[in-house]
């Protein structure tokens, strides 16, 4: 009798164990699913909020604003086909129409976002620069050269809160690694032959280090191979000061080139609209103010060359043609102001 009761008790406990395990498994699966769902929801919410913040920041030119960064950080990247996005958790959000230059990873401290207008000679677009104090910038120039003047100019525009040190000698061999997440050297008007990042201290070998050299209308990007103190270099053109900042804050050459292509694409559109406007003004003023005639041939060059450059940013005559046309349009606009005629742009 006792044996039978014992067996009954055993079955009872086995039943309770199985039922308990099922209940526990149910709750665990529910919690795991809920966790992944809320993480995904959080990254989606953060990404769209961040996109809204970027949209706002890009319009408020010249002002730097701190941006709280999610604890896992934020990644920025551009693919070879110029699909650019920022990533929070598993959620990647496209830059869409925004032109953003930022390090590949921002984490730890709040980011700093500021924007700058790109004019050629009319406002084409605003660039958004994002960085944070975890990136150390070394600006290198030789006193008394064009580099110093360049530094004086850009130093007036750079927002406070960045980690910037000035070096007045292109020799970087004595620079110690200071524990920053990323170190970037910005050479101003230093000939390529004098840039030697491979002479850096061996402590930099496994760290994230890069450099840019702004010299004679070109920007040379120096990118380090992983775990080696060996750098590859490649050049891109630049037009205007905002693109110096773009090179300085870009994660790599790819991000810079993609931003530049997008900028030329926008230039093409804006130039078409302003060209059309100038023709309309001319037509309307031909009777009332016949002296208000504009030379508009340069718009055609600007439109044609910007279309070419938006497809492929390369070293060619196109860049100098664009600069020449922009300067000519600016002169023509000044003439219009002097003659009390409506401005071209």
């Amino acid at each position: 009798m006792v044996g039978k009761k014992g067996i009954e008790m055993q079955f009872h406990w086995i039943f309770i164990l199985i039922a308990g395990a099922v209940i526990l498994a149910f709750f665990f699966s529910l919690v795991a699913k809920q966790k992944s769902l809320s993480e995904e929801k959080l990254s989606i919410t953060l990404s769209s909020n961040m996109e809204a913040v970027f949209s706002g920041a890009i319009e408020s030119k010249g002002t730097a604003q701190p941006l709280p960064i999610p604890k896992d950080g934020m990644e920025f990247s551009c693919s070879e086909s110029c699909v650019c996005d920022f990533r929070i958790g598993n959620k990647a959000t496209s830059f869409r129409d925004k032109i953003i230059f930022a390090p590949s990873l921002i984490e730890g401290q709040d980011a700093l976002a500021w924007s700058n207008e790109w004019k050629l000679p009319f406002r084409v677009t605003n660039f958004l620069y994002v960085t944070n104090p975890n990136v150390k910038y070394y600006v290198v120039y030789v006193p008394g050269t064009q580099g110093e003047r360049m530094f004086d100019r850009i130093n007036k525009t750079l927002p406070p809160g960045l980690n910037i040190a000035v070096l007045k000698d292109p020799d970087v061999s004595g620079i110690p690694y200071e524990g920053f997440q990323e170190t970037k050297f910005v050479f101003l008007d230093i000939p390529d032959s004098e840039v030697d990042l491979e002479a850096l201290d061996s402590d930099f070998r496994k760290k994230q280090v890069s450099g840019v050299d702004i010299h004679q209308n070109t920007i040379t990007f120096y990118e380090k191979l992983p775990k080696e103190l060996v750098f590859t270099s490649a050049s891109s053109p630049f037009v205007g000061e905002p693109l110096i900042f773009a090179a300085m804050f870009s994660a790599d050459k790819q991000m810079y080139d993609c931003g530049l292509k997008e900028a030329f694409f926008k230039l093409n559109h804006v130039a078409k609209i302003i060209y059309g406007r100038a023709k309309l003004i001319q037509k309307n003023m031909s009777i009332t103010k016949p002296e208000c005639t504009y030379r508009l041939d340069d718009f055609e060059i600007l439109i044609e060359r910007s279309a070419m450059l938006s497809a492929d940013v390369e070293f060619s005559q196109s860049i100098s043609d664009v600069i020449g046309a922009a300067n000519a349009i600016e002169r023509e606009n000044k003439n219009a102001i002097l003659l009390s005629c409506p401005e071209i742009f």
Partner: protein
Amino acid sequence: MKRKAQIKMFETMGVLVIFFFLLVGGAAFYFQVQKSSLQQDIRKQEQLAAFQVVQKALFLPELDCSFVSIQKDNCFDKFKLMNLSSYLSDPENEDFLIDYFNIFGFSDISIYQVYPVNNSFSYTLYKNIPKDYSSIISTQSPVLLFDTINKRYDFGVIEVDVYAE
């Protein structure tokens, strides 16, 4: 004795059934609450997106009013507006419309003059309405319209309808 054990077993089963019944009920209630909070979030995001479209339209370099390179906020140059509108509505310039999709998405943006009254100055800047949409978020904003020829600012309204799929 066997009967007693069977009753006990049924009791336990009954408790389990009620437990699971309550559990399913609770879960259904929880998921319903979650669903409505998610819908609220989606609506909030849609409103945020609509606000961004308005903001982008107001700051478009293609339309800004500037004098000696100084821009005026919330102002559109009439000639630039006429030009961009004709580019975006011309079927031959479909590429142009596609390019602006990145900026305005599915929306309908129109601008018209309200003072001095001028019914002929009414332009649809951009129009791309999806076949199926769940809601429309409409925004109206006062703007200045710069008349380059007469060097005069008129008052206008920008109407933005953003379509959520």
